[in-house]
């Protein structure tokens, strides 16, 4: 009988292929909605909030309820949002085609808009306003380069990161600590399992799991100090790093100028974004991590290398007549009429170029480069913030590799005063000065003190880490410290602007030439030189000299002279720091 045929096929469908059809039924009926996890918060060392999450109102719309009256509802919505109807509809149709169920149409609505929409709710069927967690920064620009920022995930990233649980509505950490600790901060998404009917309506919630909020970061940074320091740099391009020489803790790290990280969440208009990219002060670059010529701030290292090798005695006098001759070339001191007789301390204090030309002539470049690397230059500083340039410590091998040329003795002299091919970043420099200050220990700079759960349970503690010791005896370090002390406090010191009454400060100025001297009109006042050709100003200081508590490194891009542009800032920072009764 033919009925057996029916029975056979039924048995096949219901018994043999049951799993297959059951799966199809499941796929068709159930769907999962991700529940965003609040991003971990970031606090300073006193527990002040630097980055948190707050509820923001997102506008969802369910196309099912719009059937047949899309135009009417969208027109109403467009007028309430103050947007163009045609563009809103285009966006709506595009998103509708892409997804199933509710569409995320707008996020980050302000309170007024929310109130307006709520009032007209009756005319807007299918509309849903959901409060969802979103990143916000109570302070804006001051912490931009340290914390970084988050912004919506791109399509390309989504493809690569889908397996890690990212969705199209997620934000992702872009720079600074937000990027470095993305995995810890982002938390774990929850989800809601929903049952939907043939028309895409949600019938009921079947199950799911709650989201796990991200972990909280506690920093070593003092937010008061950070805010003051940023204010000092205001309108100037540059960076300031403050370390504790005792353990390498970062107390403040700013780079200026900086955009407001909150704006990356709301989004820039194309013209705003273009302006940001075209800004000559490069607000998006963290200048503490960019490498520049260190200028005279490198001289203590040259001196240490020479002292260690026995190429100079601290008391040895060198005559500065304003220039130094090597073969047919003439190397000029920054003081064109010369410094007269210079020994180590005055050479450092007055930053006499000729004194260091002489040391440079005596030194072998490979030895000097090796010494610099042992002091932490030419390699990552250990702070681990994304985007660090490690700089260049030139030697014979480097010259051959880069230019296919052999090293000239004259280049020794240039490197000895921190110019030429030599490039360092602020973090490396301040780390080195911290080691000078603390008697020779190179601490790895660190900015995270602990990682905690949202409930306050400590997951991981970060402490000081000794990386290495400076390759010289503390006896030579004492000589250098005396030189740096003289540079700030001596009558003819270059860093007198950083002098304080209450505490003894030691420090070193630096003026890094951007353009070769010959091309520059020498006596031209600062204002007449184009901005891009002005020198970079450096100043690194520590205090008190007897038992240093703080190292301050100031870098002012195209700021001019270190003594006049950078040292006063360091002076102000030290003054407030010690006045604050730390």
């Amino acid at each position, binding site marked *: 009988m*033919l009925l057996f045929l029916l029975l056979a096929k039924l*048995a096949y469908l*219901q*018994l043999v*292929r049951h799993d297959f*059809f059951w799966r199809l*039924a499941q796929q068709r*009926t159930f769907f999962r909605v991700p529940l965003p996890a609040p991003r971990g918060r970031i606090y300073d060392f006193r527990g002040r909030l630097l980055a948190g999450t707050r509820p923001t109102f997102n506008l969802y719309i369910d196309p099912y309820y719009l059937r047949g009256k899309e135009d009417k509802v969208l027109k109403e919505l467009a007028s309430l949002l103050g947007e163009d109807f045609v563009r809103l509809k285009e966006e709506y149709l595009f998103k509708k085609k892409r997804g199933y169920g509710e569409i995320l149409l707008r996020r980050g609505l302000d309170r007024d808009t929310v109130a307006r929409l709520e009032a007209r709710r009756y005319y807007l069927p299918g509309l849903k306003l959901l409060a969802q967690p979103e990143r916000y920064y109570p302070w804006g620009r001051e912490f931009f380069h340290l914390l970084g920022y988050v912004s919506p995930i791109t399509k390309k990233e989504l493809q690569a990161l889908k397996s890690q649980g990212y969705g199209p509505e997620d934000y992702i950490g872009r720079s600074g600590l937000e990027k470095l600790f993305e995995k810890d901060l982002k938390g774990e998404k929850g989800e809601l399992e929903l049952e939907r*009917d043939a028309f895409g309506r949600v019938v009921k919630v079947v199950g799911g799991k709650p989201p796990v909020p991200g972990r909280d970061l506690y920093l070593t940074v003092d937010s008061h100090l950070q805010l003051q320091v940023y204010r000092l740099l205001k309108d100037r391009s540059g960076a300031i790093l403050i370390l504790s020489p005792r353990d390498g803790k970062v107390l403040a790290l700013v780079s200026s100028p900086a955009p407001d990280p909150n704006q990356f969440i709301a989004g820039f208009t194309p013209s705003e974004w273009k302006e940001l990219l075209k800004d000559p002060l490069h607000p998006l670059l963290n200048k503490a991590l960019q490498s520049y010529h260190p200028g005279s701030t490198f001289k203590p290292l040259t001196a240490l290398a020479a002292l260690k090798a026995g190429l100079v005695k601290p008391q040895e006098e060198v005559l500065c007549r304003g220039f130094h001759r090597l073969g047919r070339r003439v190397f000029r001191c920054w003081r064109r009429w010369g410094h007269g007789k210079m020994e180590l301390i005055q050479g450092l204090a007055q930053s006499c170029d000729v004194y260091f030309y002489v040391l440079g002539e005596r030194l072998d470049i490979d030895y000097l480069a090796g010494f610099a690397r042992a002091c932490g230059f030419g390699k990552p500083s250990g702070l681990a913030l994304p985007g660090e340039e490690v700089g260049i410590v030139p030697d014979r091998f480097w010259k051959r590799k880069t230019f296919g040329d052999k090293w000239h003795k004259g280049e020794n002299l240039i490197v000895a005063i921190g110019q030429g091919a030599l490039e360092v970043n602020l973090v490396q420099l301040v780390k080195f000065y911290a080691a000078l200050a603390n008697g020779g220990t190179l601490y790895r700079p660190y900015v995270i003190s602990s990682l905690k759960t949202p409930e306050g349970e400590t997951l991981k503690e970060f402490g000081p880490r000794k990386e290495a010791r400076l390759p010289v005896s503390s006896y030579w370090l004492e000589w250098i410290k005396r030189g740096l002390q003289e540079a700030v406090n001596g009558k003819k010191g270059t860093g007198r602007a950083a002098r304080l009454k209450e505490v003894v400060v030691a420090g070193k100025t630096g003026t890094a030439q951007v353009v070769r001297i010959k091309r520059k009109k020498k006596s031209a006042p600062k204002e007449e030189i184009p901005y891009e050709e002005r020198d970079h100003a450096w100043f690194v200081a520590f205090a008190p000299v007897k038992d240093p508590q703080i190292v301050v490194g100031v870098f002012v891009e195209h700021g001019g002279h270190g003594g006049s542009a950078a040292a006063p800032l360091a002076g102000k920072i030290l003054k407030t720091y010690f006045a604050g009764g730390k």
Partner: protein
Amino acid sequence: MKSWFSAGPYLGGLLFLLLLGLVNQWSAGGKPLFLRQLLWTIVGLGVFSLAAFLDYRRFRAFQKLLGLYLVFILLLLFLAFTHQRWLHLGPLSIQPSEFAKPFLVVLLASLFSESQEEHLSWPLLAGATILALGPVLLIAISDLDQAFLILVIACSLILFAGLSRKTLLVLGAGFFLLSTLAGPVVWKHLKPYQRARLISFFKPGKTHKRWSYQTRQALIAVGSGGLTGQGFKRGLSSRLHYLPAKHTDLAFAVWAEEWGFAGSLLVLTLYSFILSCLLKAAYQARDLMGRFLVFGAACVLFWEIFFNIGGVIHLLPAASLPLPFLSCGGSALCSNMILLGLATSVMIKRFSFI
């Protein structure tokens, strides 16, 4: 009374099926449809007992029936010209095409019972063809599936009545010639959805992506039922409206989803039980008229079941036909109940010789 007693199991099976139909409508259509179906079931039972107590031998008077037939044809003609399937009489909606089946069965039975020979004579065959083609053609205009079903039923009856080998050969050849000639013409005049159904069925390499929405949802519903089903009123497909026409054409999918293979087996067993009862009664019938009547009823039932379930489980192209007893619909139920009532009448008259 003895006769009634012997028909007991058959009646029991029928009542059980009616009950299952009500249960299924309760799940598929909810309360309002359930109540409607309940009402129709009661009406159907009334019609059934009326037909069962009627003496079928009265229908032998072929000429009287012919008059009624002509009225019916006129009704169909009216509907065909107004492109309607339904006849609205106040709150009632009747689908006259459903009643073509009992009408035709009775007519053909009474016609064939005139035959004295083993094979149908040419004039009888011609008469039967004309009788059948009338409603078939008229119904085909608005409801092709139904027309096809009636054609199949009529052919079955004619074949059952018996044809000589020669006639069979001639008819076979004629049918072949006709279908090759008329096939393309018919194809052209099919509605797009009907064509799509046929294509989707006959296309090689059928993957589940090529299935039409209806077939796909029906198969998912049936397949996800498994052995024991998802439970009364808990079928995902029917509860969440994934099944279109779930209380009519796809009523079996609802049933199979909620009661699983066990439920399907039960329903099919009941159907085959009733069919076997009918076939047995056909052979035991006292006269030719009764035999043809009962066999006709069995035919109608069988082809309806076969085309409906076959369509649901993708054994045949999907057809828009109701499943006897399980689908909602008063006309279909009444028409089936008339036929089964008549068949019962034949069964119980088996022993009376009045």
